[in-house]
């Protein structure tokens, strides 16, 4: 066999090869958008796309942590709805309540994640079931609390984060707050995945026995992934609430959309494989695709069909690729 002595210079894995396909698809879509709609012939058009996509991208980052460690989080959609409805009711137009309610939302997100994680790791219920149960619990709780129609209203300053931006930025005009929030979270996520804890989380999804025997705290790490996912839902709720306003349907279907996005990013279900940047790129790709279909006049109802095709195709692509790669 022609093998050479270890000589690679890089200390960290470079851009994983699994990231390249999704970036290629994304590039094609972004170019296609420019041809399909005049709005995309200026930076502002793409910025608007990014603003629209920011909540899904943030959710994708949260979901990535859970999937890569070998689980699923189906509860994020309901959690987003619950957070928005709770925020509207607690704030009820009162500006001074904005900050503490936002903090409370993060707390609730983390708590729901903690419960998901604790049940998964301590009671050994598969995360698929735990988070499906959590989805139903949250759905029911929201309905019970609101009677079907949410009450209250978000404050203007709350909605600023989702709607407004920093004005007077050269070239692009307005830099949306949501894009700033997204950028900060992306940087934090990338740094986290380079940290010892992040590397170990990835290894947990691959071989948790090896991590345990290597001195890792497997249960804590998995729980941490759910907490991060819950936090990502809280941030997404803050952005979505500001962007779209209060409704009891704000988070509907987000759990499936975000899993589609992560899988589209080449992150392998079952864990141990894929990059956080790719997961996020998957979310942007999905959002771009929907924008493109919208511009081309394809009926909105087709969105879920497209999503279904994508999730099956992406997983099939990964599986087939794999079999060929086996030595």
């Amino acid at each position, binding site marked *: *066999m*022609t093998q*050479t002595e270890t000589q690679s210079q890089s200390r960290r894995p*470079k851009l994983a090869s699994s990231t390249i396909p999704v970036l290629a698809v994304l590039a094609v879509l972004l170019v296609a958008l420019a041809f399909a709609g005049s709005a995309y012939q200026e930076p502002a058009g793409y910025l608007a796309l990014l603003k629209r996509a920011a909540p899904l991208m943030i959710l994708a980052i949260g979901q990535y942590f859970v999937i890569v460690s070998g689980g699923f989080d189906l509860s994020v959609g309901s959690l987003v709805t619950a957070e928005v409805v709770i925020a509207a009711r607690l704030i009820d137009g009162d500006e001074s309540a904005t900050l503490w309610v936002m903090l409370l939302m993060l707390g609730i997100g983390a708590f729901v994640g903690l419960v998901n994680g604790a049940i998964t790791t301590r009671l050994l219920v598969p995360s698929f079931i735990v988070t499906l149960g959590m989805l139903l619990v949250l759905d029911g709780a929201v309905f019970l609390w609101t009677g079907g129609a949410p009450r209250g209203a978000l404050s203007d300053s709350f909605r600023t984060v989702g709607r407004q931006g920093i004005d007077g930025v050269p070239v692009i005009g307005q830099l949306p707050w949501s894009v700033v929030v997204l950028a900060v979270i992306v940087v934090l996520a990338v740094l986290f995945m380079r940290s010892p*804890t992040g590397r*170990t989380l990835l*290894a947990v999804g691959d071989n948790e026995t*090896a991590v345990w025997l290597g*001195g890792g*705290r497997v249960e804590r790490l998995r729980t941490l992934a759910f907490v991060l996912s819950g936090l990502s839902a809280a941030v997404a709720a803050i952005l979505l609430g500001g962007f779209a306003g209060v409704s009891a349907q704000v988070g509907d279907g987000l759990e499936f959309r975000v899993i589609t996005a992560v899988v589209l990013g080449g992150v392998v279900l079952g864990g141990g494989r894929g990059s956080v940047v790719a997961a996020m790129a998957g979310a942007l790709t999905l959002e771009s695709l929907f924008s493109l279909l919208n511009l081309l006049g394809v009926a909105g109802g087709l969105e879920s069909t497209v999503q279904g095709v994508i999730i099956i195709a992406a997983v099939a692509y990964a599986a087939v690729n794999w079999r060929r790669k086996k030595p």
Partner: protein
Amino acid sequence: MAPIVRMSGISKQFLGVTVLKDVDLDLHGGEVHALVGENGAGKSTLMKVLAGAHRPDTGSIVLNGQEVSFASPRDAQRAGIAIVHQELTLLPDRSVAENVHLGREPVRRGQVDRRRMEADTADLLDRLGEHGIAPRTQVRRLPVAQQQVVEIVKALSMDARVIAMDEPTAALADHEVELLYDLVDRLRSSGIAVLYVSHRMREVFDLSQRITVLKDGTLVTSTRTNQITQDQVVRAMVGRPLDTMFPDRAKTRGTVRLAVRGGGNSRLHDISLELSAGEIVGLAGLQGAGRSAVARALCGVDPLTTGEFEVDGQPVRVRSPRAAIRHGIAHVTEDRKGEGLALRQSVHDNTMLVRNAAFGRRRIDVERLLRSVRLVSRGTDQEVRYLSGGNQQKVVLAKWLAVNPKVLVADEPTRGIDVGAKKTVYELLRELADSGVAILMISSELPELIGMSDRILVMHDGRLAGELPAGSSEEAVMSLATGGQA
């Protein structure tokens, strides 16, 4: 006598890399033909060509005088060539008879004819002299050795004339190996051609009539077993004789690094031992005597529940792998792939695995560490699953070296790796001992254990039966291990 199978001029490339080059192999009925070579020498590829899993680029396979070309393993099976893989392919919840006839169940009036299925299976088992296996038994309930018998019966039920066995003893306990010997002997005497792939020289010489040695995809030698010595075979495989395999023993013995007094748990009783800086202590015993249980106790996997435990003279509590590691105890586990490595992660990430998981420390010169364990890879980005067994084991050692252990417990550190890598592992363990680490080494290969150890502890039935000095005989070890006196 004409061979049942004649493979000639077989060559095979994968992605431009030559894996087999012009290899000839004859398999005669009533003969056990051993195929040996280091990992990556091309043994499994040759076997897969025979089994129809790979098509050769050049060369021919002649079966009973007819040239054949197999499109799939199923084709080869129909032609009478069966493979018994290292990992068994049985369905654990089905009965022996169901497994034997899987996919080919006899049918009567539209229903599976259980009675015939079981009768056929019983016949075949009788033919092999395996009266201890009932056709209705759930496979899960059988020990691994008997599951292997079921695999072979399955092959026979398809009228196999050629049976290829890939490392059949890898998963077997010592006493089960004897049973396998009998079985192979009976297959041979019933006129079947057996291709026997193994790393273990003793088996190869005990069982085979003919030996073929592969090195780097080419045939080095093919000869009758009684015309070659073990030393010559090893030299043909790696180009160096056997007695230079083991490094020199310890020059000095340092302070006691790990001490256990009166340790016990559900598997172990009254274990007292001391491991000192600079020495390699061998731990011998029959399978099930508690060798691995000692390793798992010292490393916090199945902790001791009684007794005193000290590291560097300080009393410690070791209740988890994490606690053991944080006290400086490293654990090279027996099951490299299942317990040692995250196979889909890179060489870099696996090297950092323990450091990251147990300490969360950063920054270390991984490149230098990997050079020191003489890793051969395509770079630190390569996924460890693509490495050979020997190189995987070097990554396991590197992962422990990354946390500077005081004590290293190595459970079967050379299992399933080729001769060249074994030598490297021996050297690395000795270098580590010389640098002040105390090493406890477990091995079921006695020549290796005796060759490496500065002293040998022997276990019997969950207890330490005695201690032997360096260079003791295999007989002395076995005597203690079987409950006798030193």
